[in-house]
């Protein structure tokens, strides 16, 4: 007679739905992202521009309280003190700093090597032996990068808007508070587009170093060329090749800070951003599904 070991029995208790695995993977991806020193640097230093802007707000508030009538003087001085009267440009600039200095680090540390790392670790064979779909996996990987990016764009912008609202003339407070909405939309746009693109870039090779390098090149080279061409020939169309510049064009429109000297506008950038994002999703999805275990 067969001896049956009673220490093992098939589990017949409650199992959580498989859809919940997206959150499980997201938590895992967040912890892995936090393991990157680039992400840690970004999270710790990402508040410096906000602090600088808040100091500026406080200084302007103090200065204007000293001025007659509490209003800025006409001319150039008005521009210097405009953070309280026309804060759109300041918030737009804050986004610029956040994107170039910190979101870049986040996408580099958490996004641009993530799938390559999983290729290297042959992690798919573990994940996809469980009830996990490629879509869940990609959502989680992209989500982790997007959450960190969103945190470093929207929260500083929100705090700055609130600081400006508090310091501004009471008649302008409601108007300034309205900047929260474009700030939220712009943060979502930045974090989702750059995260998707970074994660897609991470899928192009099994070498993490290569995918991270590719991401740096993708961020910096088109922007540098566009800046150079714009400076020399006053041609702005090359900015359409730079993902951060495309986002910047949308940001300019959202915060009404359009540079009239440039011919490129948000409506040129938007279709390209949509195409880049869709292409990135397609690429990442295809690469993951074509990995050795998922067909």
């Amino acid at each position, binding site marked *: 007679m067969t001896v049956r070991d009673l220490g093992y029995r098939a589990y017949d208790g409650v*199992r959580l739905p498989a859809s919940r695995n997206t959150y499980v993977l997201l938590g895992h991806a967040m912890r892995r992202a936090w393991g990157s020193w680039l992400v840690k640097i970004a999270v710790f230093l990402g508040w410096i521009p906000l602090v600088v802007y808040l100091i500026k707000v406080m200084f302007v508030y103090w200065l204007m309280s000293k001025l007659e009538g509490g209003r800025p003087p006409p001319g150039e001085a008005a521009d210097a003190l405009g953070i309280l009267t026309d804060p759109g440009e300041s918030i737009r600039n804050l986004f610029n700093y956040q994107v170039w200095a910190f979101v870049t680090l986040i996408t580099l540390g958490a996004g641009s090597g993530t799938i390559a790392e999983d290729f290297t670790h042959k992690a798919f064979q573990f994940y996809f*032996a*469980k*009830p996990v779909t490629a879509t869940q996996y990609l959502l989680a990987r992209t989500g982790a990068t997007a959450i960190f990016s969103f945190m470093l764009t929207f929260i500083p912008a929100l705090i700055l808007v609130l600081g400006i609202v508090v310091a501004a003339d009471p008649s302008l407070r409601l108007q300034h508070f309205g900047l929260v909405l474009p700030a939220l939309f712009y943060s979502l746009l930045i974090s989702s587009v750059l995260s998707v693109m970074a994660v897609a870039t991470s899928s192009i090779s099994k070498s993490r170093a290569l995918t991270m390098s590719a991401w740096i090149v993708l961020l910096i080279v088109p922007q540098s060329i566009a800046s150079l061409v714009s400076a020399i020939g006053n041609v702005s169309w090359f900015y359409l090749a730079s993902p951060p510049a495309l986002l910047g064009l949308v940001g300019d429109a959202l915060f009404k800070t359009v540079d009239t000297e440039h011919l490129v506008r948000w409506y040129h950038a938007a279709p390209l951003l949509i195409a880049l994002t869709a292409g990135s999703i397609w690429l990442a999805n295809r690469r993951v599904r074509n990995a050795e275990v998922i067909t």
Partner: protein
Amino acid sequence: MSDVSVRAVRVSKWYGKVTALQEVSLHLEPGVWGLLGPNGSGKTTFMRIIAGQMQPNLGEVRVCGVKPFGNVEALRRIGLCPEADAMYDELTGLEFVTAMARLSGYGKSEASDRAAASLSAFGLADAQDRKIGGYSRGMRQRAKLAQCVVHEPDVLLLDEPLTGTDPTSRAVILDQIRQRANAGALVLFSTHVLHEVEALTDQVLLIARGQVVAQGRVHEIRDLLEEHPHHIRVVCDRARELAARVLMTSGIVGVRGLSDHTVEFESVDPDTTYTSIATALAQGAFNVSSITSPDATLEALFHYLVERGSRGAGTGSDAEIGSGMRSAAPTSGAGGPS
């Protein structure tokens, strides 16, 4: 969902022009099954199809009565221990297995408890809080197995689980496999270290060039291979004289003197040859040390079938014999744990 079983019907899988699996049909029931085959024979592809990670290009696989690909309930009844030795080195054993348990549908604390129990079952209780990067090869292998069984699957797919393990790890792993099979699980165990399979089970699947060339118990497979020349090795004091006496017996197709005291006969009629050897030994008053058949080992059978599969490659008489074996095997091979 129905009882524990794996059924494949004319499963084929190819990568571009390379055929990985070719019309594999079989039926497995609870117990330990050894999946034997050389590198590149299609073992891993077959495992992955059963594990729901791939879909076959042709044919159908059912695990516990349902197709496993993209099927949550089926995947929860399957535990896969992949071959590749690759894991997140920066995670501890407990973190890794807990993460896998959570993906199998357990809550946080339940997953953690199960992970600890699973690691403990594989002798990693003391090392569960150490980073996997610091594990030895055998410990990594056991951690992989712990994640494979953490959700108590009914179907265990172990792709070369003993690769690189030391004797201690091997003993622990084999013991766990036995326990689970004895409790009613179906364990499909791939390896090319044949004696490990023999230590666990005599139910084997032999796969070569993407085809299951035999399925069943070793002796059943042997019975199917009547045309395979049988080898009988005799160790006695006058091996040459014995060879001369037996040589003219019907069925003998070859004689080989391995040493002064050892002779090996090759026969296509083993029953007659055994009788002739016994008669000759008795009449000649030989001093016999042993009479054995090297064909009785799985190793010999494996090499014979693989060689034959390579020669046949789906055409000619060998292919006909091969297809005969495959069709005969499912009725004889299915059975409970050995």
